[in-house]
């Protein structure tokens, strides 16, 4: 090994790891630290097949050779990867929801995740993921009559290994980037969704995440496959409790859309953002990518990101199929000391592909919000069209907003339009609203919601309402 990689290896495996995998197997929660033993133990704990263990190990070994990227416009103290717990599970194994730990149920109640089927939001199936283990999957039976598979990733590995094997890593290979590689080695659980040809999923599929135990990194892995002519709308909503230690969230989401399939993936994210001085908070380093593999396929990412101490994510679409469409609608809010470097990548490969990017960044407090987007038009992507609109709203004069748009156009008949605006919520606007009787809070809400309207219009109804409330809470006390 070269000196450089020796150094990297050393950095990643600082402490001598005391536990063999067999010892770990008996533990419900692993001690802090990461080694090949940890990876092996995770896989064995989940009773995974050999091929998946091998995949994890390949990823882990590859990760040891990688260096953490530093190009993002965010700053944070170095992460000690040995200071993280990589596996935590509630003690009992559950066959039905009746067996769930009452404390767990209480937590779900607090989060508003109704476990009993009759209480669930009309028509929304829920796959509740808590601290690395999926507790329940509801409406599984009802969806299965349509041939739709919606279950935890762990379950999919057991029940539908051929599908997982075929598509895992096909959009985000385990070598993709530092955090995706780490995820590939130690991913805990996530959602798996398969929509058979011609089927329109009748309900919005939803998943709740929560980081509970201290120092537990969430390494979620989600895989969504939409066969020819199918449709699914998927909701991801996150919450996390107040914590002092930073918690790493390095998830990977892969979406595959075949001919004329449409996948809509919506996220409302409000992970703990850290306190006013920037202490604590979640690090949200996520890799989300979809491939429009088929002709006339479509993938839409919509997101409202208000939480996390640091956000680093670029939900992207590979527009491989001819006439495929990729869309990205985003509102990213940063306040106090939060930092965000987010955006999207639209890669035009097929013919007559189209992409739309609408990004609304809102900065307040002392925060820093960067949009980073790539529109890449390949040589053979005749007739490609892109429209991008990146707006930044500054609330106050101590925050920052930055835009890094990259346009790489290698085809002469592509049409690429880019608009960007930067504006400030002025005292004038607030005063005007207040002079009409609106409280400062209501005034800010009104102005900010007006600003985000284009994006909110793309969210599924329930999320749009939650998003507006979330925005209001995130921006409390931000103008002064």
């Amino acid at each position, binding site marked *: 090994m070269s000196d450089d990689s020796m150094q990297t290896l050393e950095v990643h495996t600082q402490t001598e790891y005391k536990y063999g995998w067999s010892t770990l197997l008996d533990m419900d929660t692993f001690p802090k630290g990461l080694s090949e033993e940890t990876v092996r133990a995770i896989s064995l704990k989940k009773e995974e097949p050999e091929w998946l263990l091998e995949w994890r190990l390949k990823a882990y070994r590859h990760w040891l050779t990688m260096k953490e990227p530093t190009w993002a416009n965010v700053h944070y103290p170095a992460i000690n990867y040995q200071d993280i717990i990589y596996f935590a599970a509630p003690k009992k194994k559950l066959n039905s929801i009746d067996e769930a730990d009452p404390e767990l149920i209480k937590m779900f109640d607090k989060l508003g995740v109704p476990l009993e089927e009759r209480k669930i939001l009309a028509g929304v199936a829920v796959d509740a993921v808590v601290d690395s283990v999926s507790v329940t999957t509801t409406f599984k039976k009802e969806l299965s009559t349509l041939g739709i598979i919606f279950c935890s990733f762990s379950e999919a590995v057991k029940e539908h290994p051929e599908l997982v094997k075929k598509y895992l890593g096909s959009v985000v290979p385990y070598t993709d980037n530092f955090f995706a590689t780490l995820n590939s080695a130690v991913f805990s659980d996530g959602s798996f969704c398969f929509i058979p040809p011609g089927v329109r999923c009748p309900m919005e599929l939803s998943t709740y995440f929560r980081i509970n135990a201290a120092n537990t990194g969430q390494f979620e892995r989600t895989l969504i496959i939409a066969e020819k002519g199918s449709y699914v709308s998927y909701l991801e909503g996150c919450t996390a409790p107040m914590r002092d230690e930073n918690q790493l969230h390095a998830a990977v989401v892969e979406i595959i859309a075949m001919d004329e399939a449409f996948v809509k993936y919506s996220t409302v994210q409000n992970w703990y953002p850290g306190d006013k001085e920037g202490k604590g908070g979640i690090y949200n380093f996520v890799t989300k990518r979809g491939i429009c593999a088929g002709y006339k396929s479509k993938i839409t990412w919509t997101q409202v990101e208000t939480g996390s101490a640091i956000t680093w994510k670029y939900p992207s679409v590979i527009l491989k199929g001819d006439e495929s469409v990729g869309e990205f609608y985003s509102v990213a809010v940063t306040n106090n000391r939060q930092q965000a470097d987010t955006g999207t990548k639209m890669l035009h490969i097929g013919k007559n592909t189209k992409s739309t990017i609408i990004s609304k960044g809102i900065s307040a407090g002392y925060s820093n919000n960067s949009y980073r987007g790539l529109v890449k038009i390949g040589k053979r992507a005749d007739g490609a069209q892109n429209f991008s609109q990146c707006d930044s709203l500054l609330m106050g004069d101590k925050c920052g907003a930055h835009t890094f748009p990259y346009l790489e156009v290698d085809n002469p008949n592509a049409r690429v339009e880019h608009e960007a605006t930067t504006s400030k919520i002025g005292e004038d606007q607030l005063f005007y609203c207040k002079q*009409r009787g609106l*409280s400062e809070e209501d005034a800010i809400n*009104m102005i900010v919601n007006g600003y985000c309207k284009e994006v909110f219009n793309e969210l599924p109804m329930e999320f749009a309402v939650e998003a507006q409330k979330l925005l209001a809470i995130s921006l409390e006390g931000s103008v002064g």
Partner: protein
Amino acid sequence: MKPLLQISDLYVSIAGNAILNGLNLTINSGEVHAIMGPNGSGKSTLANVIAGRKEYVVESGTITYNGRDLFSMEVDERALEGIFLAFQYPIEIPGVSNSNFLKSTINVHRVHQGLPELNSLEMLKFIRSKMSSLEMDAELLKRSLNDGFSGGEKKRNEILQMTLLEPKLAILDETDSGLDIDALRIVADGVNHLRSPERSFIVVTHYQRLLAHIVPDFVHVLSNGRIVATGDKSLALKLEEEGYDWIRESPPVPA
């Protein structure tokens, strides 16, 4: 009869510069007071201080509104208690539809008064009826607040809001600036329709012509931050003929 607004010995500065220097003014319900004066005399400052703009620092003096200390009230509270400012330069708020804005402000006032909120249908009817008398196109409801409005449309939108919110004390801050004769007439008609014993107006203006349409009960002339002359509508005509020079030589008028 208790005055609606009582300003006593008011000293106001902005960014360290003294603007109002011992201003005294008494306004009773039902009265229309015109405030005139040369540039820099403090006319807009007065309007903004009553509305509650924080940049204007009150150095000393008091303002009593309906028996209450005005300075103890926040901007939105003053508004809900019936103070309305028709802005000289109405600000734009993109993304917030005019109708949505009007609806929210109407309802927040109604709730404050213990009235039930209007639903969308009732609201639209109410708004549309007022808009037609101001010769405003209903299309303006769909646009973002003041966004892309012409100067005249902005001013009429201010009067529309005044009509909808039914204030006790309405302050018009140079509402006539930038308006042509026809728009001026429409605005004046809108204001005149609102005149009532329960409502007072402070009309801040440079020019006499608005006052030919909105006939004031009292005309005050502001100079160097204090009122130096008070009269009836004929005072405005005198200013029109003689300009402001003569008042600069006059002593201030006591309260």
